[in-house]
């Protein structure tokens, strides 16, 4: 059928091959390329109008910069277009389902963004006199109170800048507590399924990492754990729910055992989303736990940060918490900024200023929006969604551990054996289906791991479509008919598979002008 200017309007009536059609510009309709910013500059342009500098005699002590820096000069619309084009080459939670296990990619409410930019919050200086920032200190204090109530813990350190920084905070407190007792303990027990940050953190605190194996049901092997206990053990770092998406049901016994040898219990709170309002870690015997505000409390991931990782402490470790912290007094709020007085046992300062205030604002807005009822609903829907995905796929994919999972569903690659299709290939084929892939090859204890965390933000309709699409892909892979469908994926992303090997072998980490 032709329209009134005689053009064919049905694809099958069109001539020629659509696939692999190259355009003059390299763009493909809405897929718009942009060169490096350095390739777009032209002297004489400017993107910010500035007033003329005052006439002055320079006081730089003879240290004026010489020569050009090499920055490109562009106008505002060019810069805007550059970054808009770049943004369109990214997948995002706003645009689609992002089931990245252990990362908790949930909805990022925009009221939180608005709050972080309010006058008096987004624009105040960290070293203003405390009487001019009482609202800011009150906000930090109140967020801390919420975190203490949610976790059932008596103390909180707000300054750590991210999850791994929070781990460092927790383990430093453990080290400081042992040092204060004059005990030189050397080992820290870490299950083999832990995030890499756990052993890296323990090493920074001078501890040897002793890995504890898992039981066949995916939990830490408590018998192996017992066998490793001794007077030289400083503590245990346990992720709960763990990285296999399972609740460590021996957690109270583990706490008793570690306390029995004079050690401390560090809980990695990366997966806290699953247990919000259902249990309080204070009731599980935990001595320290970091909370990723950028996961559980939805401060956006921002393409890899900034994060925020406050740490809650038991009474046993509270005295060693880092400075600064907010103190509520009769005449308002103040900051304890130095290691002295009430803070004399503090292990020190971990970060410039007082913590990730912008993240605190967003997290508190998120908590207020949910309240006690909503926080509990988060955990329930997150766990329900993960189990719904699990039962939707576990006849085609193998779950290494039977039964109910928490916030994420874990599969191995055993049902892909001999198909010529790997976990990586499945992930890349998911990209063509319009999804961000699940976490792959983590945890390391499961072969070809696929870790799927839907979060509470996703509707049943989204999950049904996802399950359908995964079933389609897995069945197709298992049929062995067209492995190239997978090995050649992704086809429709802004880039095909990238050569990561040569990127690492001959690293090119910056642009350089071809003239130089």
């Amino acid at each position, binding site marked *: 059928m032709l329209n009134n200017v005689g053009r064919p309007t049905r694809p099958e009536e069109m001539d020629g091959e659509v696939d692999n059609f190259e355009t003059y510009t390299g763009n493909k309709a809405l897929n718009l390329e942009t060169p490096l910013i350095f390739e777009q500059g032209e002297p004489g342009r400017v993107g910010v109008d500035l007033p003329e500098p005052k006439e002055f005699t320079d006081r730089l002590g003879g240290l004026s910069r010489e020569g050009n820096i090499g920055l490109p000069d562009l106008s505002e619309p060019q810069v805007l277009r550059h970054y808009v084009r770049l943004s369109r080459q990214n997948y995002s939670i706003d645009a689609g389902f992002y089931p990245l296990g252990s990362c908790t990619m949930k909805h990022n409410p925009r009221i939180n963004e608005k709050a972080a930019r309010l006058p008096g919050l987004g624009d105040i200086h960290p070293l203003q006199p405390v009487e001019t920032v009482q609202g800011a200190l009150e906000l930090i204090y109140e967020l801390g109170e919420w975190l203490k109530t949610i976790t059932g813990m008596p103390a909180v350190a707000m300054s750590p800048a991210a999850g791994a920084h929070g781990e460092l905070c927790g383990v430093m407190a453990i080290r400081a507590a042992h040092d204060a007792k004059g005990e030189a303990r050397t080992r820290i027990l870490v299950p083999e399924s832990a995030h890499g940050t756990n052993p890296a953190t323990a090493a920074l605190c001078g501890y040897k990492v002793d890995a504890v194996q898992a039981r066949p049901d995916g939990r830490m092997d408590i018998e192996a754990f017992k066998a490793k206990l001794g007077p030289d053990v400083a503590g245990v770092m346990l992720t709960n729910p763990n990285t296999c998406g399972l609740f460590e049901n021996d957690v109270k016994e583990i706490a008793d055992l570690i306390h029995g040898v004079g050690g401390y219990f560090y809980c990695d709170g990366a997966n806290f989303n699953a247990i919000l309002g259902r249990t309080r870690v204070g009731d599980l015997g935990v001595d320290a736990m970091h909370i990723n505000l950028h996961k559980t409390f939805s401060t956006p991931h921002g393409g890899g940060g900034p994060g925020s990782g406050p740490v809650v402490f038991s009474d046993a470790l509270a005295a060693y918490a880092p400075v600064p912290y907010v103190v509520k007094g009769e005449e308002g709020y103040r900051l304890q900024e130095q290691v002295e007085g009430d803070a004399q046992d503090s292990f020190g300062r971990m970060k410039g200023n007082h913590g990730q205030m912008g993240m605190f604002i967003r997290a508190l807005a998120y908590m207020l929006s949910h309240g006690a009822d909503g926080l509990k609903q988060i955990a329930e829907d997150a766990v329900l969604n993960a189990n719904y995905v699990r039962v939707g796929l576990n006849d085609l994919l193998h779950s290494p551990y039977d039964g109910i999972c928490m916030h994420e569903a874990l599969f191995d690659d055993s049902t892909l054996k001999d198909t010529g299709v790997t976990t990586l290939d499945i992930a890349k084929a998911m990209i063509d289906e319009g999804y961000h892939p699940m976490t792959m090859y*983590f945890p390391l204890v499961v072969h070809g791991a696929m870790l799927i965390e839907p979060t509470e933000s996703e509707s049943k309709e989204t999950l049904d479509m996802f399950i359908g699409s995964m079933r389609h892909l897995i069945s197709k892979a298992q049929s062995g008919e067209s492995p190239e469908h997978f090995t050649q994926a992704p086809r429709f992303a802004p880039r095909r598979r990238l050569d990561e090997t040569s990127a690492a072998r001959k690293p090119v980490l910056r642009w350089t002008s071809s003239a130089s």
Partner: protein
Amino acid sequence: MRYMPHTEQQRQEMLQKVGVSSVDDLFVDIPESARVQGLLDLPNHMTEMEVDARMSAFGRKNLSPQNAPMFLGGGAYRHHVPTVVDHLIQRSEFLTAYTPYQPEISQGTLQALFEFQTQVAMITGMDVANASMYDGATACAEAVLMACRATRRKKAILSGNLHPHYREVTETTVQFTEFSAESLEPALDNVENLAGKIDKDIACVVVQNPDFFGRLQDLSDLADACHEAGALLVVVVTEAVSLGAVKSPGAMGADIVVGEGQSIGVPLSFGGPYVGLFATKQKYVRQMPGRLCGETVDQEGKRGFVLTLSTREQHIRREKATSNICTNAGLCSLAFSIHMSLLGEVGFTKLARINHGNAVAAAEKLDAIDGVDLLNDSFFNEFTLRLPMNAEEVVSKLAQKNILAGVPVARLMPGEGYDNLLLVAVTETVSDSDVEELCAGLKEVLNAE
């Protein structure tokens, strides 16, 4: 609850599919004695309108620099951020993406990081930079760890004129490692014998430029002394705008440059999140902490970018990693990069000249006040004044007049006898009338004594 899509009926259907009769059955692994009965002792959920009002109320209790002439620095500076910057970083595709582990659908973040790394390397005068750190102070601590690894030595010397937060964070970070950091006393007379401290056991010397008191110094001789002894020179820059006017650390012989990038594109936000800068020489690339983005090609030969050299990082190397860092300052580094792209060569160097010019003019006016002395021979946009009375009291009294006068040095360096010293920063956001107001207010406070 507006953020959760399930209807009650859907929840029931899903529970049935999962094969359990109630949601409680999904939480049976939690020990019975530790299960929360009912709800936590917290208020129930709020409407967006209520949250908005509650958050605004926090803001109203603070004195916003929008309503007060503002002269605070000390490692965080008020600069004008073009509107485009905040608009762009709030685009969904930047704001709500994860770390770019799937490069085919993360080229936006990756190319922006590659451009950020290039900009940071250019302004610091170094070969390469990483994709950012938490902030300047943590970047400083990581630089010391890296210098110890690279030289296989165990001790760092920190200048006494280093920002106290940077010193404290570095000391905290190394305290349980095999490495150590020795800090010198602050030197108000600017006579500090760092070179004399260097011997064959020293991994690095850490020095700030401009220093905490705002003074500039040529570090070339110190760099030579370091290199002669096989040690590295780590240069800290807490005011990134200064790099538009001052000779770069790279040009003075620095081996590692770390700094705070907040001044470019990132709001003050009561101290965080900010963006740590980390740059070094090509030969130390594999010793660097943090994420690195590198250029490569895809299978069709198109240029693309990936995270690279990840064998340094914790998710591969675990306890042998160069750092435990996982997250960087993603969105803040993007803001930095966009602002820097808008400024360009012309804008960045001009912005620096405006800052310096404003500071020179303000310093002259303040120095002319009876009893007030300017201590700096040299400075960029921040300088130290000696007042005839306690600086904290002066600042407090001026705050009552809605003037944010500066940072009392003793707040960050207590117990050093610096009670009368005031650190004053003057950026492009400070107008002539702001300076008039500060001078008048200061005279009033001093004369009332």
